[in-house]
C-alpha cells in the first residue's frame, strides 16, 4: 500500500492505551522515553463495530501520530499544513498499525475508542510521548448507515482548527484558535450512503489541550443514533 508521499505500510503499531500492553516508542539514536500512563479516555477497540453514543457522537477512530507543523491557525496556514503532503481524498483507508512516512518521521495509525463524547488528542499524543503542540493530527473512521440518509449534516467541534471530509468531499472547516464546542461547524446538507461512509479529519493544534468531537444531525438537527463506526469499509 503506497501513498503519494513517502508512505509505507504496514508496520505493527504500538499504542499506549488504556487496556492495551504499554510499549513506549523508541526514537532512533535517543534514549528511550520514560513510559507514560495510558490515555485515560482512549481504549483499543474490542468489538467489530461501535454504535454511536446516545447523543450521536462517533467514538471509534483511527488516529495518526502527530505531524509537526507551524503552529499557525489561520485559514491559509491550516490549508497549507493540511494540503502539504496528504492527498486526503485519494488515499486508501489506513489500518490499525499501518505506518506512514512523513518527512523523516515514520508515524503510525492507532485504532481508538473514546469513552467520552470527544476524542482527546492531547491524551493520545501524551501517552505516546509525542508532541501535543504545533502539530497536525489525522483522524479517519468509517460510518455505517443502515439506509441512505439525505439532508443530514456532519457536525463537529475541534481544538483547534480542523478540516473535514465525508466520502472524499470537504464538508466542514474551522480555523483560528478555539476550544471544542459541540456542533461548532456544521456541514451543508449531504447524503450518507447506505453502508460505509468514510470520514476524515485534520486537526491542527498550536498549543495546550487538543481534541475533537463529531456526529451527524438529521433533517431536524437531531443527533443520528443509528450509525455504527468501524475502521474499515464493509464491516
Amino acid at each position, binding site marked *: 500500500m503506497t501513498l503519494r508521499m513517502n508512505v509505507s505500510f504496514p508496520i505493527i503499531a504500538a499504542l499506549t492505551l488504556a487496556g492495551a500492553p504499554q510499549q513506549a516508542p523508541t526514537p532512533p539514536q535517543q534514549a528511550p522515553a520514560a513510559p507514560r500512563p495510558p490515555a485515560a479516555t482512549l481504549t483499543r477497540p474490542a468489538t467489530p463495530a461501535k454504535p454511536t453514543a446516545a447523543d450521536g457522537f462517533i467514538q471509534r477512530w483511527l488516529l495518526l501520530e502527530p505531524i509537526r507543523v507551524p503552529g499557525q491557525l489561520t485559514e491559509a496556514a491550516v490549508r497549507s499544513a493540511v494540503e502539504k503532503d496528504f492527498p486526503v481524498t485519494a488515499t486508501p483507508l489506513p489500518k490499525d498499525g499501518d505506518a506512514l512516512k512523513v518527512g523523516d518521521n515514520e508515524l503510525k495509525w492507532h485504532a481508538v475508542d473514546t469513552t467520552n463524547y470527544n476524542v482527546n488528542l492531547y491524551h493520545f499524543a501524551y501517552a505516546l510521548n509525542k508532541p501535543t503542540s504545533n502539530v497536525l493530527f489525522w483522524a479517519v473512521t468509517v460510518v455505517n448507515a443502515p439506509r441512505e440518509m439525505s439532508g443530514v*449534516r456532519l457536525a463537529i467541534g475541534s481544538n483547534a482548527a480542523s478540516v473535514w471530509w465525508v466520502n472524499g468531499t470537504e464538508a466542514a472547516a474551522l480555523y483560528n484558535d478555539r476550544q471544542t464546542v459541540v456542533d461548532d461547524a456544521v456541514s451543508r*446538507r449531504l447524503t450518507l450512503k447506505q453502508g460505509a461512509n468514510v470520514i476524515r479529519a485534520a486537526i491542527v493544534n498550536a498549543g495546550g489541550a487538543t481534541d475533537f468531537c463529531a456526529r451527524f*444531525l438529521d433533517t431536524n*438537527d437531531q443527533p443520528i443514533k443509528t450509525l455504527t463506526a468501524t475502521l474499515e469499509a464493509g464491516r
Partner: protein
Amino acid sequence: MRRLLLFAGAAACVIAVPLVALGALDGQPGIHDPSTVNVENGKYYVYGTGGGIPILMSDDGWTWRRAGSVMQAVPGGKAGPDVVARGGNGTLAPDVMKVGDRYFMYYAAPGTQPKAAVGLLIGKTLDPDSPDYKWEDAGPVVWSDGVEDSNAIDPGVFRDPANGSLWLTYGSYFGYIRLVELNPKTGKRLYPDRKPVNIAINSEASIMIFHEGWYYLLVTHGSCCAGANSSYQIRTGRAKKVSGPFLDNMGVDMLQGGGKLFLGSGDRYVGPGHFGLLDLGDGVQKFSCHYEADLDRGGISVLDIRPLLWRDGWPVAGENVRAGTYEIESARTGTALELAVQGMPVGGPRGRGGRGGGPPAPGAPPPPPPAPIPAQEASQVSTTWPSGAGAARLAPYMLQAQQKWAIAPAADAGGYPGSPFFRITIAGTERALAATPDGELTVVPAFSGRPEQLWRIDQLADGTYRVMPKAVPNAKEPLALSAVGSSTPTLEKFNPDSDRQRWNLRMP
C-alpha cells in the same frame, strides 16, 4: 368630549398621504381610530373613523391604499334605522373579527354623545372585489342613552381562547368602559337582559387580549383629535378573569383610573391610540395603532404596525428595524454572522504592549495615554477578501469589518406588516447576504434586489429578531436564518420554541 370634536370633522379623518420611503407604513396610511388589522387571502384590511367607515387595504402590510368605504356595500348606504335611533348618524372607530365563516364588524354610531350605539354589520368577505362582498345591517348591539355613565362608542371585540366565548368592550370617557358577552352565532349580545360589567374608567378605545393565563385590557388615555397637541397614550391592566378586576403594575384598578403605560409619544409620532392585536402565528405578534400626529407627514393621523413584545408578564411595544449598521448575533450561540474571511484585529496585529505596561522609571514623566484605535472599516481590510461570492459563517464578535452589517430598506421591494424588505450588506461594501437554492447562505458581491437578497426582519416577543429571506429558490416553505452550529448559519423552518432562529441586532 374628545369624540365630539372628532365627529365634527370625521369625514376628513382619512387623508391621502404621499408615498414616502420610510415611517409609519408606506403608501396612504392616513387613518384615525383604526380597527384591528384583519388578513384575508394574503391581503390586509383596516377600517377607521369617517363617513361611511373608510377602508384601508394592503397587499403586504407595508404599503397601504384607500379602498372606499364600508357603507358603500351596505344596503341603503348607511347605518340601519335601529342603530341610528339608539345612537346617531355618525360612524366611528370600528372593530372587525372573523367568527366562523362570517365577519362581524362593530362600529360606533354616535348621536349627541354620550348618546351613542354600537351597530353590527355582517359580511362574508372583506374583499371589495369579491362577488360575495356585502355588509348587512344586524342592528344595534349596545347603546347609551345619553344620561347613564356610558358613551357606547369604540367597540373592541375579543375571542377568549380559553373557551371560545366572544366579548365586546366599549365606552369613552363619559363613565365606564363596559363588557358584554356576545353570541358567536349572531354577533349580538348573548344575555341582553344582563347589566354590562364596568371594567375601566377615564379611557376609550378599549380592547382585550389574552396571554399566558392573563386577560389584558388595553385602553387609550388622554386626549385625541388635536394633532400634535393630543396626549393620547395606550395603557393596560390585567386580570385573571375576563370580567376583571383589571389591575395595573402597581395594583391600581382600571376602574379607578389605573393603567400601565404601553405606548406613549415618541420618535416622530405623537399620540398613539387604538391598540389592535395582529397575531401572525409562530409566536410573531404585532400590534396596530394610530398616531394622532406623524410629524414626517405634516402631523396627520396615520396607521402603524409594530412588534408586540412581552416582558415580565406585560406587553411591551417593540420597534420595527431601523436602517443602520448592526452586529447580527445568534441568540443560540452568541456568535455573530460574518463573511467568512480571515479577520484582522482592529488596529492591526499588536503585541501585549497595549495592556498599559509597567510603572514609569523613577523620575521619568508618565507616558502619554495610548492613542485611541479607530473603528475598522471594510476599506481597510477588504483588499484580501475574495472578489466573488463568499461564505457566511458565525464567529465571536470582535468588531471586525466582515462582522458589521448594514441593514437598509430595499427600494421599491415591498414589505410585510410594519416594515419594508431590507437589504443586508457588509457595511461599506455592496456584498449582500443572500439565500441559495439549497437553503444555505452566501454573500454575493453585489446587491441585485432579487427576492433571495431581500430580508424580512420581525422582532419577536422576547426582543430578539427572526430574519427571513423574502424567497428561497426551490424552497417549499418560508425559511429563517438559523444557527445550526456555533460557527454555522443556515436557513431552516422557523421554530418558535428554539433559540436557533432568534437573533440579536446590536449597534456596533
